[in-house]
């Protein structure tokens, strides 16, 4: 455990010693702010329209109309920022030779991979914490339900975990962090749009494509539902990606 924390700590320090952490967090803050303001205006308009309807005032739900779509929009931010977090993790160590230090230290491959994943997760949480401020305003001026907000964050954490573990795996395959970043972005995008075809596909294919889409599984979390189906998907996705990373690092040893 100490070994994992030592690696995670080093990773985190590396993010903040380089511009990566500031770019990721800054970029996320700007985009999230933009989404928030837009959705807020939209919500304000809809609630005014609902308040002046022919049939008297209608109830509008801030969770359904503002917070839930907001969470879904965060997926867009992750698409761009998370490759930045993972692209250097292994590629850079391999290029600079520091991987030799890690692999000749009394650490297991699982500890190294877990440590790196954890480091990325902590930075990701720091990035998400920016959004707490915006939601804080909603809680200050309105009274949204807090449970769907919590499940929404849980969903975002799990979805980010999927992206991070996948990015870690891709980074472990190359020495070049630009290639790692580009491929990670492309693969994220693929997992994002994979169910666009679902509407035209047959019933079986449709179910498969929808199941594979990382973002599809976020919908229920954003609505306040914790479905084991989605939990299993996310957790097994993360575990499998990390497992692949361990195997990739190990096979590199044999190939030299």
């Amino acid at each position: 455990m100490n070994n994992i924390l030592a690696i995670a700590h080093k990773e985190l320090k590396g993010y903040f010693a380089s511009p990566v952490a500031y770019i990721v967090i800054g970029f996320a803050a700007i985009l999230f702010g933009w989404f928030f303001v837009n959705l807020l205006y939209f919500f304000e308009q809809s609630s005014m329209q609902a308040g002046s309807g022919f049939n008297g005032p209608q109830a509008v739900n801030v969770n359904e109309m503002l917070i839930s779509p907001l969470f879904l929009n965060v997926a867009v931010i992750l698409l761009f920022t998370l490759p930045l977090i993972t692209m250097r993790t292994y590629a850079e160590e391999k290029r600079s030779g520091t991987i030799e230090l890690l692999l000749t230290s009394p650490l297991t491959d699982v500890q190294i991979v877990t440590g790196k994943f954890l480091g990325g997760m902590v930075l990701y949480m720091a990035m998400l914490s920016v959004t707490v401020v915006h939601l804080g305003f909603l809680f200050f001026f309105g009274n949204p339900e807090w449970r769907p907000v919590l499940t929404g964050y849980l969903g975002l954490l799990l979805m980010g975990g999927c992206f991070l573990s996948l990015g870690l795996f891709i980074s472990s395959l190359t020495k070049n962090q630009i290639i790692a970043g580009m491929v990670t972005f492309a693969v994220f995008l693929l997992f994002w749009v994979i169910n666009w075809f679902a509407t035209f596909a047959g019933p079986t294919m449709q179910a498969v494509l929808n199941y594979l889409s990382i973002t599809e599984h976020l919908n229920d979390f954003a609505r306040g539902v914790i479905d084991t189906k989605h939990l299993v998907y996310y957790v097994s996705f993360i575990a499998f990606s990390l497992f692949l990373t361990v195997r990739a690092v190990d096979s590199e040893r044999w190939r030299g």
Partner: protein
Amino acid sequence: MIEVQHLTKRYGPTTAVNDISFRVEPGEILGFLGPNGAGKTTTMRVITGYMPPSEGNAIVAGYDVSSHPIEAKRRTGYLPETPPLYPDMTVRDYLAFVAAIKGVPRRERKSRVQTAMGRTAVADMADRHCSKLSKGYKQRVGLAQALLHNPEVLILDEPTAGLDVKQRSETRQLIKDLGGDHTVILSSHILSEVSQTCQRVVIINKGRVVAVDTPDNLTSRLRGEETMFLQVDTRGADVKPVLEAIPGVMHVSPSDVQGDLISFEIGSETGRDVRRELASAIVGRGWGLLEMRPLRMSLEQIFLELIEKEEPGTIPDGEAAATDATPAEETAHE
């Protein structure tokens, strides 16, 4: 302390290391000598557990690196060819991180880092980022990293590469001091350095062990004959037949002719001192004996000879030729 048994490492179709075996006794400093691409780094990478062997095994401090990697790695310090530094970290932070992953208890980390920085003389750069260090400092921080957890075994891949003459001799001294408490394998392609630092030398070429011995034994073993350098003022006479007639002299070859001043290289049987006979033959005929000295075979010549013996008829190519650079040339490259 270190035992390498029938170690073979293949990368796909190419065999980098082919059936190498040797032992290193506790406290010994072993030099690992060979041209670039001979398999030095590969062998070291197997011993440190960075990569598994294709065949055979390596045992470090009683632990097989393949079956008990964690135990073996705990007892090994390794300086790779390029010091494994994180550019964004300060020297102190970097060493603290290494201490953590090497399993140094939290309480001792600070003092261990301090000691290691002191021993390798990098303490004045403690708060400098690793990316801002000169080559020499990087190399020494790499060495500090290897020493940090006070390992029983130290594997140093070209520890003096990139250092200037003074740092180089300091590092050699440090390594000599480490011997005794630590078992050290160091690789180099600078032969004089190995002969100064190491008690025993393993010479490898093309993935095979060519010779294992002390530097002194290697020298005498390979000298099938003694060579003498002579400079004679001949005053116009023909000296060569006279010298050749002296019993024990095997061949005489003039190496340099400047008018009457002729230099000779004289090969004689081993164990037979022909200096007196040579001197009296020359002086007795009224010629001038200007210089006479024995030519010792340097490790470099031995090395080249061993490699050529390995493959009769071939001249060591570019790779091997790089190794016969003299220390002076080596310094000039940097």
